[in-house]
């Protein structure tokens, strides 16, 4: 997990770009060069999934982003709406030739990701 984080930092340093000029509506998103970090709130349900979807997709339309990193360190709840949102972003990134990953996933959230089968599509760290 630490390795993962260092990797993310390194990538950010290498690209040397920041969020400047990019809307950061809710403070959920942080753009570091070609990487977009999404700090998932405590509960990823239908309501929150729609917020994230809207904000991420807006950025993807205008910015050159190659990697979406969903940081679940604050998250204790996820349901099928969260899965649908992740699956949708996975499809978009795959079409763009980019990547999606989920980091710091806790046990409960991991259970949901595993049952849904999304752990076979995106890289997931934590929870096992």
């Amino acid at each position, binding site marked *: 997990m630490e390795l993962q984080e260092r990797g993310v930092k390194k990538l950010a340093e290498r690209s040397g770009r920041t969020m400047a000029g990019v809307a950061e509506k809710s403070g959920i998103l942080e753009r570091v060069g070609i990487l977009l970090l999404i700090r998932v709130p405590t509960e990823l349900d239908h309501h929150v999934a729609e917020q994230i979807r809207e904000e991420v997709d807006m950025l993807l339309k205008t910015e050159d982003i190659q990697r979406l990193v969903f940081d679940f360190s604050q998250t204790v709840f996820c349901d*099928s709406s969260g899965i649908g949102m992740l699956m949708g972003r996975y499809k978009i990134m795959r079409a763009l030739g980019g990547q999606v990953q989920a980091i710091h996933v806790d046990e409960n959230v991991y259970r949901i990701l595993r049952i849904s089968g999304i752990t076979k599509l995106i890289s997931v760290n934590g929870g096992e």
Partner: protein
Amino acid sequence: MKNQMKLEFASISENEAFARVAVAAFLTQANPTLEEVADVKTAVSEAVTNAIIHGYPEGVHTVTVAAWLEDKELELEVTDTGVGIPDVAKAMEPMYTTRPELERSGMGFLFMEAFMDQVQVFSKPGEGTRVQMRKRLGKRDE
């Protein structure tokens, strides 16, 4: 001891969290494990979200959540008076969704069945849907 509660709320997505938390608070008297609380919260969230998006595709209406607790036996009912489900067996198949354009993936009933001991759906097109679920809590005490 037998206990009962009933909640009625508007079909807006903000209320999903409210419904989950209320049911979780109601459960505490049965001394559930953390995992059991998580299981029930997921099931409530799925059924309530379905009522809001599928049951009431237009406008704001009322969703009802009722719960009964007798010793360690929990019974939950999530009810809407919306569009109803024409083919319940088909709707409950994993990966079956009528709203792929909303990024729905047909996992809701799968999660309800995975996390509750029993799930039954009563529905009639044009009249609405009632999802009834049961679970035995407090497994650690056994």
